[in-house]
């Protein structure tokens, strides 16, 4: 079953995945140049950070790219399944929709991790050379945990798109997350009120946890950002679970079907 999803995913998105990896580096490079031009060699980084500026931005860009991919794939999942008639077939089968969603998420997570590793290679290299393999594995674990709230966010978007019958909300959300991800620049540059927006998105906590991991000056990696990421994951999980139950009731009631 996973194989069907993976094959469809690879064949459909092979070229765009390649383009995404290349473009992420171009994007990171531009950010680095822009940051250096406006903020000196540290490029507007937080003063407490001792991380290499390019690696800092590679983490941010990779997280943004990853979140865009997940939001795009999950956001359109229910709507495209409705349009293609696959949703009806799934609902009529003995397997539950939630199981199908989890199964669909697995290949995307595997690809998400692969793409993250390809796009955040400089940061991973730093983690490897500074703390060894264990820290590199920890950073992958952080990404894997961080993808859970991203998938839930994508699924919530998917519900909204299915209800509205238009994918325009996906484009708006992507623009919003791109701007307020909290992963591309330090929060301090935002007005105080607007800082609440990145603080409500998982992207900020993934970036925080990962940067903490690779920027620590001590012999041990800093895991300070991980508990916050776990709390955000739990919060998104609870909201997702409530809204999923409402959605599955409404879909069988004939509202969204």
């Amino acid at each position: 079953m996973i194989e069907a999803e993976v094959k469809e995913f690879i064949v459909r998105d092979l070229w765009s995945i390649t383009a995404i990896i290349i473009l992420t580096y171009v994007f990171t490079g531009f950010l680095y140049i822009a940051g250096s031009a406006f903020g000196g060699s540290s490029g507007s980084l937080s003063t407490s950070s001792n991380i290499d500026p390019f690696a800092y931005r590679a983490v941010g860009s990779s997280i943004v790219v990853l979140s865009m991919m997940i939001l795009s794939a999950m956001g359109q999942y229910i709507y495209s399944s409705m349009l293609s008639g696959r949703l009806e077939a799934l609902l009529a089968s003995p397997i539950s929709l939630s199981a199908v969603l989890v199964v669909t998420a697995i290949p995307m997570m595997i690809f998400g991790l692969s793409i993250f590793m390809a796009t955040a290679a400089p940061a991973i290299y730093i983690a490897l050379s500074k703390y060894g393999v264990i820290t590199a594995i920890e950073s992958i674990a952080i990404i894997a945990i961080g993808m859970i709230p991203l998938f839930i966010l994508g699924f919530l978007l998917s519900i909204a798109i299915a209800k509205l019958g238009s994918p325009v909300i996906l484009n708006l959300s992507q623009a919003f997350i791109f701007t307020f991800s909290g992963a591309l620049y330090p929060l301090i540059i935002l007005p105080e009120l607007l800082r609440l927006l990145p603080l409500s998105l998982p992207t900020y906590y993934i970036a925080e946890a990962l940067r903490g991991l690779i920027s620590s000056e001590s012999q041990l990696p800093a895991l300070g950002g991980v508990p916050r990421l776990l709390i955000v994951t739990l919060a998104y999980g609870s909201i997702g679970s409530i809204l999923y139950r409402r959605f599955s009731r409404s879909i069988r009631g004939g509202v969204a079907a």
Partner: protein
Amino acid sequence: MLAVDARDLIKRYVTKRRRGLFGGEKVVIEALKGVSFSFEKGSIFGLLGPNGAGKTTTVKILATILLPDGGDAYIEGFSVTKEAHRVREILGVVFSADRGFYARLTGLENLIYYGMLYGLSRFDARRKAEELLDLVDLGDSRHRLYEEYSLGMRARLALAKALIHDPSVVILDEPTIGLDPVSSRRIREILKKLSREGKSIMITTHNMWEAEILCNYVAVIMSGRIVASGSPEDLRKRYGGQRYVEIEVLDPPDDLRVGDFEVVRNDGEIVVLRTRSSEDIASSIEKALLEARSLGLRIASIRVREPSLEDVFVEVVGNPTKI
């Protein structure tokens, strides 16, 4: 034993009617207003009705993807509302002949995917998929991508998908709509074969001819209500009633008088007239001939046509007050 037993199904949709740019009001649409029907195991049942009559809503309720607002339905004794999981195990459904598949996967891969959704192991799903692809004449195209399939091939693949878990009841929503005559005939042949093998089949259609040659039992649904049901023979007797006597008139005069006849076709050189008769065949012909002669018509041919299910449908749907 009853294959499907629908009892007083009610379904309402709440939709929003737009008013101006931002305004709107909730509108309740009653799709089903107490639909009841049943048919025996091993038979082919046809749910007939015009567009928007409630056929697809009924199918969706039977397939457990919609919950009714009232009533219940039983598939081989299992309730679609209370035992949905059991129903899904014994039911195969085709919602649309050309939808529901992964475009970039082959026909075989798509069937294996659906087999596994129904709990088959990969090995069993593959074996069953290959068997079904042969049944629906897609054995040679099993490795072609779904997006390369023609509409007829897609319809046959959809039928194979519905059979992947060997269900005892199969429901098909308009299985031959949009198909060419050869593909439609092949679908009908497969359905007849499945029925002979003991599967219970329900189709929805507005193709009366198809229902007539395929179904043992039919029900006509209109505006969310069953307005007639029975075997095609029963319905013809009940609602078709009179037989038609059709005469072909050569070189009709300019001032053609048709008396009790109705004009079926008039292309200038040949006119086809029709009259109804409830008498026996000989008397019907005699009466029509007398009438034609009294009108001074040159008769080229005469034939008697028994009422078809289509006549019944037109009678029932066109004049619901007669029911």
